[in-house]
Every structure is written in structure tokens, then in C-alpha cells.
């Protein structure tokens, strides 16, 4: 029943989106199209960036949704028929697109250099827009034996103390590997050192750890599915993207609890397709969206953190506590090493998918 409801809610929000896109305020001279992820996330961008851009920089921003795969960009670049001026993507996708020459290098003079951005949030062709985290969460109303409460990733992997199904991300080994190692006793700060120095041993250990709960895993493959599995009682704990769980707590009144232990923080980035005739307009928008006072607005609408130091300082403490970048949440956090992953996404992805199907 809830499934059906959320599907129709999604359909309704899609209709709302079309409505909003069509009625753009004050016809501005400059018009660009921004591709992003839809749902609550696009809504936050609309409020924080797109609507104010019409007044503040005289630019109309149209919206589109995309699936996050390189082939969608490749088609546009190869045919020269561009749908999108700027694209919101995950860091790894951005690096791959940059490597394959599908996106253009950014004008870093215009953006004021890379130093004002958080470490790892920039590359030649990409600049961070939000910091988000993969966390794990449970339903506060679910009673574990003896009233135990999960507080660490080791608890997530402890089937004796916390019996029940677990939700894990199906599409990629990224984060799954890190979580398994931390649950197996590797300190969050040492995860990538270990993976770099003893790659084979570390990977075998991570897969062995995942093996230990494999029979109890329900796999999720879209951001909305993780909170859905929790509310349907299909799983007792699941990994998830923090904004989705926060959204379920605040907007749907769910009694979910986010555990901030060993969460892996990654960025979403802006990029511009290679050879786009409106490159300058794209840069103008990215520069605007990277201004601290503009960037700081977004966290009022969704619990993702800004990527510049200056914007972090402008955020209201009430909101700050829910962000992955809040100091209190950062004690045991891991910053995703996207460069390490960029070299291995494919082969480890293959190994992960083969392992899952065995």
C-alpha cells in the first residue's frame, strides 16, 4: 500500500515539476538547462539556485532529470545536439567523464581557485556542489532482542545481537567494501591505507565479511528504495543515502534513526558537456551556485552539506547537526577516495556482481 502511495506521490511531484519548469518567472536573457536527480533533491536545487538565479543573475534555469550514466552524455557530445548545459553527477562519474573527454575543463580563475573548496571535491572538469554520505539506519520502532540499539557498523554486521534482514546497495561495490572493512575492525581512518598497501588481502577480507551476511541481504538499487524497505519491514537495518532517510523522518514522519559511524562521504559535482556552445553561461551558473551565501541556502531544503569552507560557516546550527559534514557527525567518518575507485570501479564492479550472483 505504501509502495503504491509513494509511486503516485512521485508521479504527482513529476507533474508539479513540469508545471514549475514551464512557468519561469521574468523571461531572462540567458537560459540554460540543468540535469539532476529529481525528487526531493531537485526540489532543493530549485529553491536554492534556480529560482533565485532569475533575479540575482538574470538567468532562467530549466530542469531535466537524468540516470547518471555516461552514455547519456556521450550521445549529446557525439551528435552535437546538447540537451544540458550543466550536469549534477557523482564524483566518480565526473572523473570518468573527464577521462573520456566528455566534459570540458572548468574555468578555475572564475571559480576563485580550488583552495576554497573542501579537499577532494574538485578536479579539472568538476566542482563539488554538495557533500552527502552513505550511512546506515534502522527503524526506531523495531525492537531488537534485549532492547539492544545498534551504534556501530560492527552492529550492522552482527546477526546474533541484531537478527533480521539487512539492506545493501546493489549496483556498486563502492562503500560496501569500506563498510565491510570497518565492521571487521579496520579503523575508518585506515581503510584506504589498508586498501592501498594490501589490496588483495583487504579485498578478500571485505568480500569474506560481506559473505557472512549475504543470505540475509535484501539489495536496493535506487535511492528511494532504501527507506521503503525499512518502512515496509523488509529489512531491520539498511545502508542508505543520508538525505533520503532524513527526508523520510522529516517529511513522512518515519521513526528512522541514522547511525553516524564510519559513514562514507562523497560529493555531487557540476560539470559542462564538452564542446557546448553555451559553455560561458554554464560557467556563469556554476560560479553563482558556488558563491558561499548561495550554496549555504540548499541545506535548508535537504540535509546535504556545502562544499566550500565559507558556506559551511553560514549554516544555521539547527540544520548543521543533520549534515554529513557537521563536526559532531564527522568523528568516525571516511572521505570516499574517488581516485582510488576511479581505477577500479569496473573490475571491482564486475567482481562484486559476480559475487552477488553466486
Amino acid at each position, binding site marked *: 500500500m505504501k*509502495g503504491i502511495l509513494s509511486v503516485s506521490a512521485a508521479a504527482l511531484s513529476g507533474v508539479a515539476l513540469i508545471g514549475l519548469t514551464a512557468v519561469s518567472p521574468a523571461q531572462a536573457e540567458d537560459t540554460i538547462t540543468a540535469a539532476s536527480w529529481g525528487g526531493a533533491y531537485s526540489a532543493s536545487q530549485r529553491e536554492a539556485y534556480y529560482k533565485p538565479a532569475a533575479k540575482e543573475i538574470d538567468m532562467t534555469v530549466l530542469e531535466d532529470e537524468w540516470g547518471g550514466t555516461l552514455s547519456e552524455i556521450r550521445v549529446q557530445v557525439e551528435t552535437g545536439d546538447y540537451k544540458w548545459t550543466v550536469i549534477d553527477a557523482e564524483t566518480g562519474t565526473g572523473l570518468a567523464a573527464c*577521462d*573520456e573527454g566528455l566534459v570540458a575543463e572548468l574555468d578555475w580563475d572564475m571559480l576563485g581557485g580550488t583552495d576554497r573548496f573542501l579537499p577532494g571535491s574538485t578536479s579539472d572538469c568538476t566542482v563539488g556542489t554538495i557533500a552527502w554520505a552513505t550511512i546506515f539506519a534502522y527503524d526506531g520502532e523495531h525492537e531488537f532482542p534485549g532492547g539492544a540499539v545498534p551504534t556501530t557498523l560492527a552492529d550492522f554486521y552482527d546477526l546474533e545481537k541484531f537478527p533480521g534482514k539487512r539492506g545493501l546497495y546493489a549496483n556498486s561495490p563502492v562503500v560496501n567494501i569500506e563498510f565491510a572493512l570497518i565492521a571487521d575492525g579496520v579503523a575508518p581512518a585506515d581503510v584506504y591505507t589498508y586498501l592501498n598497501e594490501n589490496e588483495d588481502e583487504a579485498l578478500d577480507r571485505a568480500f569474506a565479511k560481506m559473505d557472512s551476511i549475504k543470505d540475509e541481504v535484501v*539489495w536496493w538499487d535506487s535511492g528511494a528504495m532504501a527507506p521503503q524497505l525499512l518502512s515496509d519491514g523488509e529489512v531491520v537495518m539498511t545502508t542508505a543515502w543520508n538525505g533520503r532517510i532524513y527526508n523520510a523522518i522529516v517529511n513522512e514522519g518515519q521513526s528512522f534513526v541514522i547511525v553516524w559511524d564510519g559513514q562514507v562521504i562523497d560529493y555531487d559535482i557540476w560539470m559542462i558537456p564538452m564542446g557546448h556552445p553555451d559553455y560561458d553561461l554554464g560557467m556563469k551558473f556554476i560560479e553563482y551556485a558556488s558563491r558561499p551565501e548561495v550554496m549555504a541556502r540548499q541545506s535548508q531544503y535537504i540535509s546535504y552539506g556545502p562544499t566550500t569552507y565559507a558556506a559551511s560557516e553560514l549554516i544555521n546550527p539547527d540544520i548543521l547537526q543533520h549534515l554529513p559534514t557537521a563536526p559532531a557527525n564527522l568523528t568516525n567518518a571516511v572521505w570516499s577516495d574517488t581516485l582510488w575507485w576511479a*581505477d577500479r570501479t569496473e573490475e571491482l564492479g564486475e567482481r562484486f556482481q559476480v559475487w552477488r*550472483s553466486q
Partner: protein
Amino acid sequence: MASTAETDVMIAADGVPLKTKLRRAERMRKIWALGLIAPLFIFIVGGFIIPIISLMTLSVEDPEIPDALPRTAEAFSEWDGKDYPSTESMIIFAEELAAASRGEFGRVSKRLNYEISGFKSMLKATARAADDLALLPADEILQGYIDIDKDWEDQAYWRAVKNASSPYSDYYVLWALDLKRDGESREIVSVDEGRAVYVEVLIRTIEISVAVTILCFIMGLPVAYLLATLPTAKSNLLLILVLLPFWTSLLVRTTSWLVLLQNEGLVNDLGIWIGLWNEPLELVRNRLGVYIAMTHILLPFMVLPMFSVMKSINPWHMRAAASLGAPGWKAFLKVYMPQCMPGVGAGTLLVFILSLGYYITPALVGGPDDQMVSYWIVQNMGRNANWGLGAALSLILLGITMVMFFIYNRFVGIDNLKVN
């Protein structure tokens, strides 16, 4: 003489010989007929044949290195694979790596990483230093490579470049069968155990298809029999019940099964409420869920052809058999069933071939070890962007379907098919 020749040629009223006129009319009719089938013909060629052929060729193409590093490909293909390649070809390799665009380099390093994992990062480091490397004298070039990454001392990496240098290869087709060519001897061997998955997937695909076909047959036969033997008014009503789900979207039906069968779904709630079981049963996200949903979705494809054949069987045959002393079951098996065979054949073939290509239903209601070959085609075409492997898997799926079709034709005969 002249007069006989004149009578031989029949002349039409307007003075043109009748033969010519007839031929002209015939030609017009042919052009007219061709014109009528032209849209269908163009649609089939453009919509099926050309895409299928171009997809199939993808599975034997290996274009990355020949396209991006053409001189390297040429130089390496002249090397016999023993010891090291010539120093000239090493220099050419460095020159082309230095000159390659970002996109070209990305495709080359991805391709070489399939050969030996870890090649990508090694190649990146090499490309960064390639400008200087290309300037080294011939006798220092190998050492130059080794100074960048000591793995270049291992001839396996050089052979990997050579093995990926030919524009066509059986690489992806072998991969789709969990096989590969040994780097040195070029003999066909099995891939490492951790990578072997596709043979199992192919067997699983056939296994699920056979099981679903049998389930559909067992459940469809009584339904079709009932539909064919009831009075028309009642059977029409029942037929609507068969057709209604048939007209409903596949996605809706699959998702409904997910809602029904999940832990806190209707079936489990009901079972626990009645007291049939105490803990929620695992009915979905496993093989059981796949069987339930696929059987339900494909059942009409079994019932309808059987029904249309059974409808045409004369009921007097059964009565005649009974009057001659055959017990009911024997009359059914010996008299009724043989006459049903065209319908049974059409139903089983339809259900089996449709099952082979199923994607969305197992993806939604199955677990990771219930995914069929279509799932892996999608994975490779989309997420992994490994079009060669995706195309090779498609080729094998098409092959299996055609083999099944021929086996079937051999034993049942396509002429005996009766779909409606």
C-alpha cells in the same frame, strides 16, 4: 506466310500486342503489391535486421587499440609474442600514448584492463611520462618503461597489448562463455573462478524457462479444457478472466506480486492471521517469487493457443471412445490429447521463448542469483559500458533461441503450430 504471322500476334483494341499489354498489367500489379509490402519490409530491415546484425558484429569487433593507436597496433601485430617486442614498436607505443586524446586513452586503458587487472593505473603513469619516454634511444627504451613501473618487465603486459591489437577477435564471445585465450599460447582456457559467471547464468536461464513452461502447462491445461468444454456464455466470461491480466501491463503485474508476496504483504499477513504459519515466509526476492510471477504473467500465452485448438476438437470423438469401452483417462490421453498437440506445441514454444528473454520480472522479484542472461546484457550494455560483452551475450541468447526453435521444428514441426 505474312498472314499467319499476323494471326499469331493478338492485337488489343488500341493496336498494342496483347502479350505486351498483359505483361505491362502484370508488372503494374507487381509494383503495386511491392508498394503495399514496402512499409513492412523497410520496417523489418531497418528495425530488426540491420540493428541485429550491427549488434552481432559488435561482439566480434575489438576496435579500441587499432582506432586509437593505429601504428602501435600495426607494429605489435608483426611481433611473434616471444621475448619482448622490437624497440621501434616500444617507441611507437610511447609516441602514440603521448599523442592520444583523453577519450582515446580512456578507451585503450579500459580495454587493456580487461586483459590484466591493474593495467589501467600502470598505463596512466606511463602515459604521463610518455613524452620523455619516446625520446629515449632504442637500447634504453625498455629500461625506461621499467623505471616507470617495474611490471613492464613482465612480458605478459606486452603480450596483452599485442593480443588486443587486432580489429576483430573472439575475445568477447569467449568471455561470454567463461573462456579466454591464454596470453602466451593463445589456447582457449577457462577464466579464473572469481570471474566465471556466464555459463551458470545461461544454464539458469534455460532452467527457469523450462520450469516456467512446465508450470504454465500444468496450470494452463485444465483451464483451457474448461474454457473449451463449457457452454459459450460461461466460457466467454471465464475467457475475459484470462484475457484481463493478459491486457494489463507487465510492470503492474510484477509489482503487484511484489506487494502481495513481501514479508508484510497480503499473503503473509493472511497466512499468519489464519494461523497457517507464524513467521513471515520468504516468498519473494528468490527463485520462488520468480516462478510465481513469471508463470502468472505467461499463463495466457499457454492457455489461449491450447484453447483455440481444443475448441475445434469434435466432442463426439470422446463419446465414441467411451462407447467403445475406453475409460475416461485413456480416452483423454489417446484420443483427446493427440488432437491438442498443435496447441500444446504452440503454447510451450511461445512460453519458453518468451521466458528466455525475460528481464524486468526476475529483476524485480528475484534475488541476485535468480537473474537471467538479459539482466547481464543490460548490466554490460549500460552500467559497465562493455558493449562487446553485452553483444556477445545477446548473440548466445539468439543462438540458444534458434537452436530451441530448430529442435522443436524437428520433433513437432512448425507447420503443426496453431496459435489462434
